[in-house]
């Protein structure tokens, strides 16, 4: 609720801003001679120039409505229905244009909405009455309606009379071609979308994630579905003129998908998608404003893709880079622990006689080259788990290193014993499993295992299990649970 509330507030503020900005007069873009991008940016974003004002407010409005509706279609896995719908509106645009033989925003809006809804209806009809699957149905509707639209548009272009300019602008989008009437229409439609989503947020949330639940809760699911389709058609249609038929679906999908990577909550996702939509809309409009021949749509889409790319790589929880770093640090820790375990085994084999383990012994134990062993040893030293003797050949575990080594060996053997005792698995089958789980057993689980196994001292292979008490003795006097189990923070 909070999100939609704030979104409504935001839309209201924007509308006020627009109203206040309308009467202000300023230099036209044509009089601009400077080529300084920075100065242009100031001019553009201060909205002094009417063309820039319309372009910017249009871009922001479309960012809001596309971000909101896009979030719903992304979570409902209907992204490509948005694509089909956005191509299917083209005949409606052409017919709306034909109605008055000019670019009348309301006629075009009505025509486009009708054809958009017709397109989604045909998709579901094909799905229901033939054996064709959704993808084929979407593809056919998308391209079939589009072809009809192209036929009409080319016929309009060949008409001898009338003001034909403007129809082709709907294909790739030209934000600078928008006038005050377009902006008013966009503002009204965006406001309707925001208000409806605000009032019925709970209902839309329910049908997006759990249709069956929504149905048994007594929500009119069918009505809600169709009203969402109507809002979707609205947001596609108002975005048309700035982004163009071909790319408008990207403004629905991409900002919402970026938001989806950043949060798990629908209301936060709505917020973020709206923000991303507005930012990429404004950026695209600005770049195309720099050079008027450039179409707006592709730049808006690229800006949105850039946002998505950043979210894809760097999202705090789902980002590819972040996950890679997390996985790498886990792999490093497992490697360190395995090295410690090998050192422990070497020491154990000679009854803990002598104080260090040579690189040769470690290499032999791990069946590796001495170079590899030396690298592993260096990593232990870097983490304060071991020191190297002067000649660099002898590894001496620090108390903390010894503690952690014992903890790992204890985890391993406890788990082996647990599997043989509690799960009746043969003693020669438990090693592999223990080899994996030893790195992830937490303090609580270890204590439970020890109690459950009655503080056993021998594992199924007859080797001693270091007890938590033993490990505590190694420690330099610290006795907090983290240090005891070897899972505390490193000093």
């Amino acid at each position, binding site marked *: 609720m909070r999100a939609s509330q704030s979104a409504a507030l935001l839309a209201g503020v924007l509308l006020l801003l627009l109203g206040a900005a309308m009467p202000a007069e300023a230099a036209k873009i044509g009089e601009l001679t400077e080529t300084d991008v920075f100065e242009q940016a100031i001019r553009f974003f201060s909205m002094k120039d009417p063309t820039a004002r319309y372009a910017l407010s249009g871009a922001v409005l479309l960012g809001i409505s596309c971000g909101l509706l896009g979030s719903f279609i*992304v979570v409902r896995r*209907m*992204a*490509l229905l*948005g*694509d089909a719908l956005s*191509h299917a509106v083209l005949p409606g645009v052409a017919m709306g244009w*034909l109605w008055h033989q000019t670019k009348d925003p309301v006629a075009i809006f009505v025509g486009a909405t009708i054809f958009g809804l017709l397109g989604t209806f045909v998709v579901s009809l*094909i799905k*229901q*009455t*033939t*054996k*064709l*699957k959704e*993808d*084929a149905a*979407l*593809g*056919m509707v*998308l*391209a*079939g309606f*589009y*072809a*009809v639209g*192209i*036929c*009409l548009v*080319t*016929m309009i272009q*060949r*008409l001898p009379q009338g003001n034909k300019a403007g129809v082709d602008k709907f*294909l*790739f989008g030209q934000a600078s071609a928008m006038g005050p009437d377009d902006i008013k229409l966009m503002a009204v439609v965006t406001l309707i979308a925001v208000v409806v989503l605000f009032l019925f947020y709970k209902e839309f949330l329910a049908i997006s994630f759990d249709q069956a639940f929504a*149905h048994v809760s007594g929500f009119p*699911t*069918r009505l809600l579905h169709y009203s969402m389709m109507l809002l979707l058609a609205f947001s596609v249609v108002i975005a048309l003129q700035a982004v163009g038929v*071909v*790319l408008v*679906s*990207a403004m629905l*999908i*991409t900002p*919402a*998908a970026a938001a*989806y*990577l950043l949060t798990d909550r629908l209301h936060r996702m709505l917020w973020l998608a709206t923000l991303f939509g507005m930012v990429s809309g404004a950026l695209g409009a600005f770049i195309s404003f720099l050079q008027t*021949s*450039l*179409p707006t*749509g*592709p*730049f808006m*889409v*690229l800006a949105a*893709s850039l946002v998505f790319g950043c979210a*894809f790589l760097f999202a705090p929880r*789902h980002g*590819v880079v972040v996950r890679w770093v997390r996985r790498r640090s886990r792999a490093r820790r497992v490697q360190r622990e395995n090295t410690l375990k090998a050192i422990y085994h070497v020491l154990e084999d000679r009854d803990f006689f002598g104080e260090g383990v040579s690189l040769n012994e470690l290499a032999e134990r791990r069946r590796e080259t001495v170079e590899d062993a030396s690298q592993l040893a260096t990593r232990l030293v870097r983490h304060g788990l071991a020191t190297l003797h002067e000649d660099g050949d002898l590894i001496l575990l620090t108390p903390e290193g010894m503690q952690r080594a014992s903890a790992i060996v204890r985890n391993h053997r406890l788990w082996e014993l647990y599997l043989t005792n509690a799960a009746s698995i043969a003693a020669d089958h438990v090693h592999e499993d223990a080899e994996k789980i030893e790195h992830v057993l937490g303090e609580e689980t270890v204590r439970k295992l020890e109690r459950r196994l009655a503080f056993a001292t021998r594992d199924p292979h007859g080797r001693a299990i270091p007890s938590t008490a033993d490990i505590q003795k190694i420690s330099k006097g610290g006795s907090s649970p983290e240090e005891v189990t070897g899972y505390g923070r490193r000093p």
Partner: protein
Amino acid sequence: MSGFIPPFDWHAVVVSPWTENMAQYGWIVAMGFLVTLACGLVGNYLIFRRMALVGDAISHSVLPGLAIAFLVAYHAGSSGLWGTPPDAADGAHHDYRSPLLMFLGALVAGLGTTVLIELIHKKSRVKQDAAIGITFSSLFAIGVILITVFADEVDLDADCVLYGEITFVSMEPRVRLGELSLGPPSVLRMGVVTMLTVLFILLFYKELLVSSFDPGLSRSMGINPTFMHYALMSWLSVVVVSAFESVGAILVVAMLILPGATASLLTDRLPRIFLLTVLHAALSALAGLHLAIWLNCAAAAAMVVMGAAWFVLAWVFSPGQGLLRRWWTLRTQPLAPPALETAQPRE
């Protein structure tokens, strides 16, 4: 409003193209047929694999590949590496396009799209549909920016991207072999691609069939389904790029899906589906041309409109599963409605 739909003049629309302007319209129909056929044949497998929208994605995203190929060919050409350097004085039309580079660019772009969709889909929690939408729209946007910014160097304009310029084939200088005029080069090129498509399907009929319908069985037969997937995607890119200048980026989708979808409403057997695909391609191209002449609109779009009209006819009148047949069954056997009716999930 009057005059928007021209009066239907039987002679001008139907007769004269074949009596007076045969040389002009014949090649357009041939081109339309070849494009629809090649697309339809490959598209059949997209329908079986439920990947129709990957076809949509690839048809959009070959644009940047194509634009870069044009740029490279232009610069290589103007530095004299590739053909003759441009000579503005003689005013002749220099053809900087290099078919090889175009295919290469499309191949890279097509495979890149497939890989990118997989990457986004596998490495994040974005679902496949959204991944497709994001990938193709970004690549298409890059392509549009390239062709607008380098408009002088890339011989592709926005109209061509949006609805193709199939009527241009009749204006191309003919390829000649001695005395014999073979036809416009783009039609010949498309003919080769279509023949190779047929050959590809005949040679790998079993492999494509098994890997499309049962990847597990395919693996056990020693046919790598992943390899077949990428082979199909590569060939799809080649077909799409050869069709690109004639029909543009979006109408291609219709040509990929409509023939196969129409055929699958009429029969269940694969060989018959392929035969019907050929028939659908021919009828769409022919009827589309006449529609375009009558309404004076873009010919490629008219061909798609006619293709869609054949689909609607099959949908309504198909003897096995048409709407009429379903209606009749429901009417005559009201007590036993087909399971399909009741098994539909609520929207």
